[in-house]
Structures are given as structure tokens and as C-alpha cells.
């Protein structure tokens, strides 16, 4: 209990050190404090791995590489156990390995989705991102007046999308042609009615193919 209490106090102190780290302008002192902070975080991680394996009676291994690619530390300390577990993992089928596997990106994404408090921070991030984007765009325009030609090219690129839509228009025109044909055919048929000599609105003519002649049916019978 006393050791855990001291650890907890150290944790609080590390938070304060982090605050000092933000404000401090001396690079050497900030580097030293950063190293101390990181090493304490490492210890915390390994300690939690120990607790997890002890409480739940399961096997846990942690492989920790630094930014330069050097193997800093493993847990358990005995690398043979870690290697044994790693070999068992690598021998699994890809489908088995994919189960319950996560990485930094997916883990943080899930954390954001599950936590409602982070929604406000997401909005703040979005606002900051949009304002930063506008600032950089304005700066880019100032730095490079030649960029206007690129804007012209982007418009040319947008104009190339028009031919993609024109085949559709052509397709619609083909589809509408029969309609126009029908309309013209209607006009041709309507023109026959004025030729009738009777006062009635409509008249019927019978066409004989052999003699090539027409016979008109009297109106009194048809209508």
C-alpha cells in the first residue's frame, strides 16, 4: 500500500511536470523532463500488464520498440517467453489473427465513437482545421501567383467532365426521337380529313389493292 501510494503521488507529480514542460523554453530541461515522463509512462504500462496477467490468470506479453527502431524493453523480461508467445501468434491462420486485433487508429476511433464527451472536441478540431485550411490557402496564393494557371487547369479538368454527361444527353435524344416521329405521323394523318367533300367531320375511304382505287363509305352508315 505504501509503495502504491508513493507511485500514485509520483503520477500526480508527473502531471505537474507535464505542465512545466509546456511552459518551459529551455530545450535541455524540457528534454530531461520529457524523458522522465516517458519512462514513468513505460513503467505504468508494464505494471498494468503485470496486474492484468495476475488478476485474470492469463498470459500477456508486451513488445516495445523505440522511435529509432531499437528494442527497448519487453514484458515479461524473459524474452524466451515473449518469443514463444509471438511464435504461437505468428503460426495462427490469418483469419484467426484478425479476430480481436486492433491498432492505434482503430482503437482511437472506437474510443471517440464510444465517448460522448469527445464530440465537442471533435467540433473544436473541425473548426480549427477549417480555419487553418483557409489560412494556408491564402498563404499559398500569396507565395505563388503562378498558381492561377493551376486553377485554370482545374477548370479544364472540370470541363472534361462535360463529355461524360453528353453521351447521356445523346441517349435521351435517341429515346425521344420516336415521340417526334409519332407527332409528325399524326400531322400527316390529320391532313387527310380536309380532303373529304362531305360536311361531316370524318369520312372513311376503302382502298382496293388490285385496281388501286378508293371508295368512300357514306356518312349515314358509318356515323
Amino acid at each position, binding site marked *: 500500500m505504501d509503495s502504491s501510494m508513493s507511485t500514485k503521488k509520483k503520477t500526480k507529480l508527473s502531471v505537474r511536470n507535464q505542465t512545466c514542460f509546456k511552459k518551459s523554453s529551455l530545450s535541455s530541461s524540457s528534454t530531461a523532463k520529457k524523458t522522465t515522463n516517458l519512462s514513468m*509512462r513505460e513503467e505504468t504500462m508494464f505494471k498494468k500488464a503485470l496486474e492484468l496477467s495476475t488478476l485474470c490468470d492469463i498470459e500477456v506479453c508486451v513488445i516495445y520498440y523505440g522511435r529509432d527502431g531499437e528494442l527497448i524493453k519487453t514484458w515479461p523480461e524473459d524474452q524466451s517467453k515473449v518469443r514463444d508467445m509471438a511464435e504461437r501468434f505468428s503460426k495462427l491462420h490469418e483469419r*484467426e489473427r484478425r479476430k480481436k486485433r486492433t491498432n*492505434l487508429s482503430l482503437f482511437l476511433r472506437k474510443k471517440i465513437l464510444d465517448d460522448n464527451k469527445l464530440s465537442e*472536441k471533435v467540433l473544436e478540431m473541425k473548426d480549427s482545421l477549417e480555419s*487553418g485550411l483557409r489560412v494556408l490557402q491564402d498563404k499559398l496564393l500569396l507565395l505563388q501567383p503562378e498558381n492561377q494557371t493551376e486553377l485554370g487547369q482545374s477548370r479544364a479538368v472540370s470541363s472534361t467532365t462535360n463529355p461524360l454527361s453528353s453521351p447521356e444527353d445523346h441517349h435521351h435524344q435517341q429515346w*425521344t426521337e420516336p415521340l417526334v*416521329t*409519332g407527332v409528325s405521323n399524326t400531322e400527316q394523318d390529320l391532313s387527310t380529313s380536309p380532303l373529304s367533300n362531305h360536311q361531316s367531320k370524318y369520312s372513311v375511304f376503302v382502298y382496293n389493292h388490285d385496281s*388501286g382505287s378508293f371508295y368512300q363509305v357514306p356518312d349515314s352508315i358509318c356515323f
Partner: protein
Amino acid sequence: MVKKGGTKRKIAIETIQKRDSLRVTCTKRREGLYSKASQLCLLSDAQIAILATPPSSESNVSFYSFGHSSVDAVVSAFLSGQRPVPKDNKETREDVGICLTRNNLGLGFWWNDESLARSENPQEISEAIDSMRTLLRNLKELRADEALACNQAFVNDREDLKNNDKCDFVSDHETHDQTLILQSASPICCIPENLNEITQEPNQTLNIQSSTSAICCVPDNSPENFNEITEEQDQIRSICETFCVMDNNAALPEMNLDYDQDIGFDTPFESALNDWFSDNTTHQEISASILNAVVDDQVSVDLTPFSYFQRCLDGDNLRFSDCFKDFANTISAL
């Protein structure tokens, strides 16, 4: 052991005997371990892999694993004794979760970096702009996923993520279909007049159908005009059906002959009218001589079409004559 002055208590670090408590503890502490590891990755650009066995041997999962850059990369590097490949910086910049967590840890957003603000390199700035646009798009997708995940438990499997992506794709596809529908509607309303010249004559049956749809699609229609159009169309249809019957009997070589006859449509028509008048006059004289009594105009009119149909039925096609037999029966009934 109970500690004075607070409500939280610290448990002894020993194996938990209760099965349910053990499972819950395992899940929560594993997530906590992942959280600590993720913070360490972000702060020190480290690459970490964590492997854990399931609490129960009956589980269908072989290993619970967490890794940055990825579990496979770190594990294979460890087994081979080589250094792991460093993470691509671009992917890190364009990930919403990583940027947000870095900000929470006090590292700030990368686009507010002083070195970027002071930079005079156009290429660097344009790359930053592209990354920011990608990040903004990912952020909008994340907010969409957040809306989907409100009532659902988000399972941390890639297959589920793929399913979510497919759902997004389907919704985009539906939007695209609606756009097409709107585009296809407009050409019907405004048919250009130039198409009349280009027009060719397909089958007359299609003409009837297309003319119907053309008239119905006209937006400005008063009820009276619509009725008149319908009546005229009925008359036109009866004439067209006659020609359709003619076309059905003709074979391909004979189509040319019919086409020639269509070209000479007007000339036989005028001659037919003259013939009709002359024949009508002749029949009136014959009927007068046959009947000694006074002849009514109505009787003479009735006799005329009957004799004419007799001439029509002699040399016609069978199908064509069937139509006129029905027609003759109708007249005889009157």
C-alpha cells in the same frame, strides 16, 4: 483493502476466483492497457505490440492483440531480430483519432505548428492543404459513423467496418440514381424542333404508341383540348390499324412495292374520287330502271356500298377480307 477518506478501494493483485468478475476485469483492464500503450505510442513515436490470451480456454478467440504500427509488423520484426519499418507520416497526419488524441495529450494540432506557419515552401504548404482536406473528409465520415453507432454497440472487427463502408456506398448509389431520374425527366418536356428533319419512319404500331405518350407528356393541357385530341386520335388509330394489317402480311421484298405505293399516295386518291362519282351516277340510273315505282334517295344510298364491297372482296388477302366481312355484317344489321 479499504482506504480511509475516499470511496474508491484498491483490490489485491491476486487471481480472481469469481468467473464473471474475472471476465469483466479482464475486459476492462485490457482496454486500460491498450489505452496506456496508445498514449505512449503518440508521445514517443514508439512501436508497441501487446498480445493477450483469452481468460477462458473455451473462447473462440486465440489472441487479443494491439499494435502500432501493426501487430504483424512488430511481431515479425521481433522474431526476425530486425528493426520494424517506421510508420508512414502521411497516414498519421490524416487520421482523426490520432490528431484528436495528440491534442488531448497536450501536443497540439499539427497544422498549428510554428514551423509550418513560418514555412515559405509552396510544395510543403500544398501538401499540408491536401492532408487537411483529407482529414476534414475523414472527420465528416467519422461524424456520420457516430450517428450510425448511437444505438448500436460498435464491434471492433474489421469486417464490421467493411460492412459500414458498404452501407455508405449503397446510400451514395441511391443518391446517384435520383440524380439520373431528374436528368431524364427534362428532355421530354422540351423536344427541339430540329429533330423533325432527322426523323425516320419506324413501324406504324410504334408510331401509335409513341404519339400517345407524346401527347400525354405535354405539360400544358386543358381538359377540353385533351378530349378533342383523344377523339381525333381514335379516328387516326382506326385508319392506322388498317395499314398495320397490310404491313403484317407483306414480306421483305414486297415491302419495297408497298413503299413505292406510299410514295404515289396522292395521285390514285384523286383518280379514285373521280371514279367514285362516275360509278355512283351509273348505279343511280340502273336502280331507277329496275324499280318502276318512285325511288327514295335512302334506298339508292343503301344499295351503293353493298355492290362496292362485292368488288372489294374478290381479289383481296384472306385476312384483309375477314375484316370487311365483319364490316359488311355490321352494315347489313343496320
